[in-house]
């Protein structure tokens, strides 16, 4: 790590996140003045322009890549047009222990005076909550699902390579051509298109102007530094005279003086270079490695300034995009490997300077992290199917290892063509225990994407952004709409639609009959106050009856969720179009439509299902002990579950120790997992979204399995009330007792190619990856999983003793990064529940 990077890293890591009200003030002022004057897309783009024009520009010492969303590193703006934080929210953010964002009293007062009154009743969040039906609200409040877009804009976007071949002026030119082509005579949407395209053109100008402001500041700073040098020269002249007098006795001082001077001169050159780069990109296509990185960074900043998309922004296959610049410049002698690495490190630090915008209310509990899920893809395949690994891939791995900072996340992408040495290089970084990179199966997700209807080329250019979700980079809006709490669905099934924690009817009432469970017809469907006769679980005569009831509840809850998701999609399309993001996503320009309004070539909605392990093990416990072995009756089981097992410890032990659980390559349990997975797939797959396309399934949890656990009572697999449910597609914590090969075999039984991503967490003791040969074996374990069409796997290489010690003495483990579910986080930034969840995962060890 160079000294520059070490200083920048220190500043980035040690700066505490703050809230900045600058964006909100500019925006509020703008809306007061302009609301109603322009069509919405144009209003949004002018608002973006206004922010780019007025926001504080920051260029820090040592920086080579420039630009901050806030006025300084780690200063996070708010987005009151979506969710307006109340004074109380701001106070909580300022004072809470974890994920704290500090804000001054003065700023809170200004916010209360200038921002809050204007937005009251006008925010996107209020618009959404005024619409939702009671059934939805009841299910949402019970924790059956979450809703991503209630306070953050749809995101999860990654870019393809087009911004390295075209500048904003080129995009603008394309936009103008499309406007010229509009057919107002025959196209009823021509007016909408014109408004949208005009807004996109304004957004291009806004970002060019934003960059120009950086160029100017860099020049001013260069002049200041030059003035400083002059001053020093004057001083040195004086000293030189005294030097003569002293016969060179202070020559040491002089050389350090001139060292300072040469550093300052170097900084002048760097600032001039920054100015030159910012004047060229993003207006024009980048010509150099440096320009390419700055180009991306401006696009990244533009996107996260315009709106607060869930998952910041993602360069996608960064190594593939940069390789041509790197190779050209290295050959020409204008760049060497170390310089390229330093520039990349600068970008990494920039991403780390941008914590996620803070949320309010229930959502804050769903995901407690500063991480904003930029997940940089390394390796993979190129558009023509050839191997995507280059020297830049290896440099990025070095950057990841040396910096080991919270953001950005990184992942290696392995196809049958990926060289083994690249996989091993990735596994070597994993063995250090920072929780990244995670590992994706490129061959699998290309099939997943083509199954969804992407062309082969677009699928190959795709990958995984955020945690594990797949998308066609640069061509798709793939919106994650929220998590589904599958174990909670089983809980309400066992209580005939009632949430036992509140006694409220949140699901269907289902009457069993002798053949199979029958869903009570719509007219009979449970009202929320109606108290008709309910059938208790004791009346189920077979596992099949119970299971049919469970599937009926899954379908009911899923439909509730989709209905509101579709509503929210339209709210964003109408009131919060992403006019800048639309510029860089195909085919928004060609269609003259916004990113949120079907502009992209592909438009997907995902529902993320959580707790497959918990629900499988619960169903396995019921099937095995109640129906197959008749070890105990349903009444006894339910009594135990309802008492959180306090009433029947022997039953608890029997379940935990004597049930075939998922993750052990045991067909009894695994076949239940496959069945649940297939039924979730059927419930979600193909349901129409608002853009003429549809919903797909994916399986991930981020940290939501902890929140869902909190709101779910004891489950029949022996999980106690409030404990985390299982994450992604991983086995339940501690249930997998036959080692990692059995786990991947179990996971391999799911037809993962039908999903939009699955997630497998494995925890290894450091003793398992001690030697080079161990790492080679880890690499072949990964390859083995991928022969079964496994989508993703991630490793935590840390032992329980270390984690316990970190809980006891947090100060000594400030940089202990661990893998959560789809991203890494600082162990000390996690609340106790998250920490315990990590510790409860099965430790795979060897003697």
């Amino acid at each position: 790590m160079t000294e520059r990077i070490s200083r920048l890293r220190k500043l980035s890591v040690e700066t505490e996140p703050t809230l900045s009200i600058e964006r909100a003030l500019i925006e509020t002022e703008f809306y007061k003045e302009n609301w109603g004057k322009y069509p919405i897309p144009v209003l949004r783009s002018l608002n973006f322009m206004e922010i780019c024009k007025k926001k504080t520009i920051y260029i820090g010492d040592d920086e080579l890549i420039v630009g901050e969303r806030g006025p300084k590193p780690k200063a996070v703006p708010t987005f009151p047009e979506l969710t307006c934080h109340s004074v109380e929210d701001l106070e909580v953010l300022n004072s809470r222990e974890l994920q704290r964002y500090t804000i001054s009293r003065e700023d809170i007062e200004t916010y209360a005076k200038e921002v809050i009154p204007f937005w009251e009743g006008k925010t996107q969040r209020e618009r959404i909550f005024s619409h939702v039906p009671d059934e939805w609200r009841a299910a949402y409040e019970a924790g059956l699902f979450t809703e991503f877009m209630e306070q953050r804009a749809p995101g999860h976007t990654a870019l393809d390579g087009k911004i390295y071949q075209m500048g904003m002026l080129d995009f603008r030119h394309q936009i103008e051509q499309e406007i010229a082509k509009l057919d107002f005579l025959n196209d009823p949407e021509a007016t909408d298109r014109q408004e949208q395209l005009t807004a996109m053109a304004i957004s291009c100008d806004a970002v060019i102007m934003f960059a120009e402001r950086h160029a100017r500041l860099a020049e001013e700073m260069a002049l200041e530094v030059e003035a400083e040098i002059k001053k020093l020269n004057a001083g040195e002249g004086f000293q030189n005279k005294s030097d003569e007098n002293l016969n060179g006795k202070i020559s040491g001082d002089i050389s350090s003086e001139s060292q300072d001077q040469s550093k300052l001169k170097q900084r002048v050159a760097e600032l001039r270079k920054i100015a030159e780069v910012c004047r060229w990109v993003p207006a024009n296509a980048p010509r150099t490695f440096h320009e390419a990185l700055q180009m991306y960074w401006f696009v990244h900043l533009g996107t996260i300034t315009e709106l607060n998309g869930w998952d910041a922004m993602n360069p996608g296959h960064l190594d593939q995009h940069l390789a041509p610049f790197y190779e050209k410049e290295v050959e020409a002698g204008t760049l060497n490997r170390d310089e390229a690495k330093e520039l990349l490190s600068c970008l990494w630090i920039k991403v780390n300077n941008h914590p996620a915008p803070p949320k309010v209310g229930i959502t804050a509990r769903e995901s407690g992290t500063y991480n904003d899920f930029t997940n940089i893809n390394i390796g993979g395949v190129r558009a023509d199917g050839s191997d995507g690994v280059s020297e830049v891939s290896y440099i990025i791995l070095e950057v990841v290892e040396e910096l080991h900072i919270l953001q950005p996340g990184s992942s290696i992408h392995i196809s049958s063509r990926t060289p083994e040495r690249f996989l091993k290089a990735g596994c070597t970084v994993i063995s250090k225990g920072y929780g990244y990179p995670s590992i994706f199966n490129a061959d699998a997700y290309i099939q997943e994407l083509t199954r969804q209807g992407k062309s082969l080329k677009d699928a190959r250019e795709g990958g995984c952004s955020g945690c594990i979700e797949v998308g066609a980079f640069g061509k798709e809006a793939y919106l994650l709409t929220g998590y589904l709490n599958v174990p909670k669905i089983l809980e309400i099934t066992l209580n005939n639609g009632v949430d036992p924690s509140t006694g409220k009817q949140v699901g269907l009432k289902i009457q069993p009959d002798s053949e199979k469970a029958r869903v009570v017809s719509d007219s009979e469907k449970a009202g929320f106050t109606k108290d008709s006769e309910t059938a208790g679980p004791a009346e189920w005569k077979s596992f099949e009856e119970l299971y049919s009831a469970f599937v009926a509840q899954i379908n009911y809850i899923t439909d509730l969720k989709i209905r509101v998701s579709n509503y929210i999609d339209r709210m964003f399309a109408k009131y919060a179009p992403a006019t800048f993001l639309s510029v860089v996503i195909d085919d928004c320009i060609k269609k003259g439509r916004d990113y949120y309004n079907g502009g992209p070539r592909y438009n997907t909605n995902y529902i993320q299902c959580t707790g497959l392990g918990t629900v499988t093990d619960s169903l396995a416990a019921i099937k095995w002990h109640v129906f197959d072995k008749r070890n105990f009756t349903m009444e006894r089981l339910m009594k135990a579950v309802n008492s959180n097992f306090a009433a029947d410890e022997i039953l608890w032990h029997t379940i935990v120790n004597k049930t075939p659980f998922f993750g052990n390559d045991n067909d009894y349990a695994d076949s239940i997992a496959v069945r649940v997975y297939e039924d979730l797939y059927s419930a979600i797959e193909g349901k129409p979204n608002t853009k003429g396309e549809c919903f797909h399934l994916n399986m991930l949890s981020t940290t939501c399995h902890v929140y869902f656990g909190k709101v779910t009572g004891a489950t029949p697999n022996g999980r106690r009330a409030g404990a985390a449910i299982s994450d992604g597609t991983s086995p339940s914590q501690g249930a997998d007792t036959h080692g990692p090969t059995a786990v991947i075999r179990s996971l391999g039984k799911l037809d993962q190619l039908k999903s939009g991503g699955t997630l497998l967490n494995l925890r290894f003791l450091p003793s398992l990856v001690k030697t080079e040969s161990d790492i080679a074996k880890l690499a072949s374990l990964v390859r083995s999983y991928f022969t079964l069409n496994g989508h993703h796997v991630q490793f935590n290489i840390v032992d329980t003793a270390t984690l316990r010690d970190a809980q006891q003495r947090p100060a000594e483990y400030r940089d202990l990064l661990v893998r959560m579910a789809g991203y890494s986080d600082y162990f000390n930034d996690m609340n106790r529940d998250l920490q315990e969840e990590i510790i409860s995962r099965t430790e795979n060890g060897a003697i």
Partner: protein
Amino acid sequence: MSLIFDIKKYSINDGPGIRLTVFFKGCPLNCIWCHNPEGISPKKEKMHNRNKCIKCKSCVGHCPNSALAMEYDEIITDANLCVGCGQCTEACPTGALEISGAELSVDYIMKEIKKESFVFDQSEGGVTFCGGEPLMHRSLLMELLDKCGELRIHRAVDTSLYATESLVREIAQNCELILADMKHMDPAMHKKYTGESNELILSNIRMLANEGFTFTPRIPLIEGINADEQNITAAARFLASLPGFEERTVELLPYHNVAKGKHEKLYTNYNPDNIPMDKPSPETIARCIAIFDSYGIEATSR
């Protein structure tokens, strides 16, 4: 009837690649440091994990021979009455009671092996048969070796080599790799710590080398027992005298004190004579490696 006491997956220290290891129950030696004491007796043995036991007495009532009782707040088994039927383990809700050793069919074992073959393919791994002493179970072992051979699965046999030369030869002819344990070079010491002398073992190693079989010498390295310069030098000298020695890597397996808990479960005493045994220090390991090196033999250690 041959008994298997464990089948372990993701085994990465017993041969090349990722392996599945089958543990045979029963061993002619009785090494005081044995990591798997439940592998010594060829009979089924009851194991009781006191940490898991919740003293619910479910087992007591389920024993058809009344061999179990709760005395002084402990579940105890009358060894004279227990026939190892395993009904108590069925009744035990926590898994604290287990029967070590099961009569597994060849089909069952082969099914487990086949499940893992996708990992063998990717890692160039395979199956390792160990124990106990797999050579005590010639018929089952040979059948498994044959079946694995038919499937072209790499086969390793981890053995004490305390067996007749003809049996060792037969096994060596039917596997790809022998993991050959060398516990001590001094016959008297060997007898003291393992119960038997080492002459047969060393002559089997010589035979393996002379006849060109592939084998890896392995030394369980125990401070206080065999990690001294004299023993390691003797081992190095012996190995250096064998044909093909320069192609062989000696694996040093540092001793861990893991067997203690297992002895407790078996109601047996760990190291009853309190012979001093310790984990070798990194310096000791380095010194041993250097000794082998001076004889032109590569040695590795985890």
